[in-house]
């Protein structure tokens, strides 16, 4: 079993814990945002296009 002390020692990274963990956290946060942003954008683009097509159809009918 891994003891509490061992986990704390691992997290401390020999005194550099704050630097190491913040680096990894910022990197992964940016990478996740990099995916979420275009996925959200895709939904918005589809919504806008649908509205545009519906408007065009209405104009075409009258």
């Amino acid at each position, binding site marked *: 079993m891994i003891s509490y002390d061992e986990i704390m020692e691992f997290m401390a990274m020999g005194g*550099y814990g704050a630097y190491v963990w913040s680096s990894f956290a910022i990197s992964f946060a940016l990478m996740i945002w990099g995916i979420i942003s275009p996925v959200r954008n895709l939904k918005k683009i589809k919504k806008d296009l649908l509205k545009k097509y519906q408007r065009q159809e209405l104009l075409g009918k009258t």
Partner: protein
Amino acid sequence: MFKFLHKFGSPPYFYNFINKILPYLYIIFFGLLLYGMYGALITAPADYQQGNSFRIIYVHVPAAWMSMFVYMVMASCAVVVLIWRMKMAQIMLISSVAVGAIFTTIALVTGSIWGKPMWGAWWVWDARLTSELILLFLYIGVLALYNAIEDKKIAIKAVSILVLVGVVNIPIIHYSVEWWNTLHQGPTVTKFDKPSIHIDMLIPLLVMAVAFKFYYIINLLHNAKNQILISESTTSWVKDMVKKQS
């Protein structure tokens, strides 16, 4: 071969292909990432000079490599755009900008966090750091220029020329640590003789580099989907798909 290329040049085919391939890319990416992170945090021994702080290398260096790699991909696309005006090259170029900026930001921010305990400063106007910062401005500039010009046919040409002019910065970044006396350490992996890094440290680094490559492809494809929809918005396949999905 030409039939294959022709198929990939066709937007509807490419759009469906992206949707099919993305789940596999995610699986490979997370697999490599988990393996790389395990190696980076657990199996790699602490550095004899820098202690555990050197573990920042496992995000810093892959991100820095990718920041230059993405730019070179964009430059290749820019050549194709200017000579052959291929639509797919335009989409690839624009879809790469955001992820390139992300990699550059990661390299700069993690480098800064690493610099504080090792050099005693968050930032120094060192050749390597300054040229990498210019790369970030280039990415932002490309995005701003593309969005500023209303006519996208003109915008993509202007952007291509800007990207090609900016290529001059890439060798400057790469060789900055050799040309000038910099605070930034010299290359440890891409030296022509044997890399001066222990194998247990090197393998997770290379795994992380490959994982970041997969992240680039995933991010690129997500952005490419959006670009395809926008540029093909008047075609019937986009109309049918949008209507069907709502």
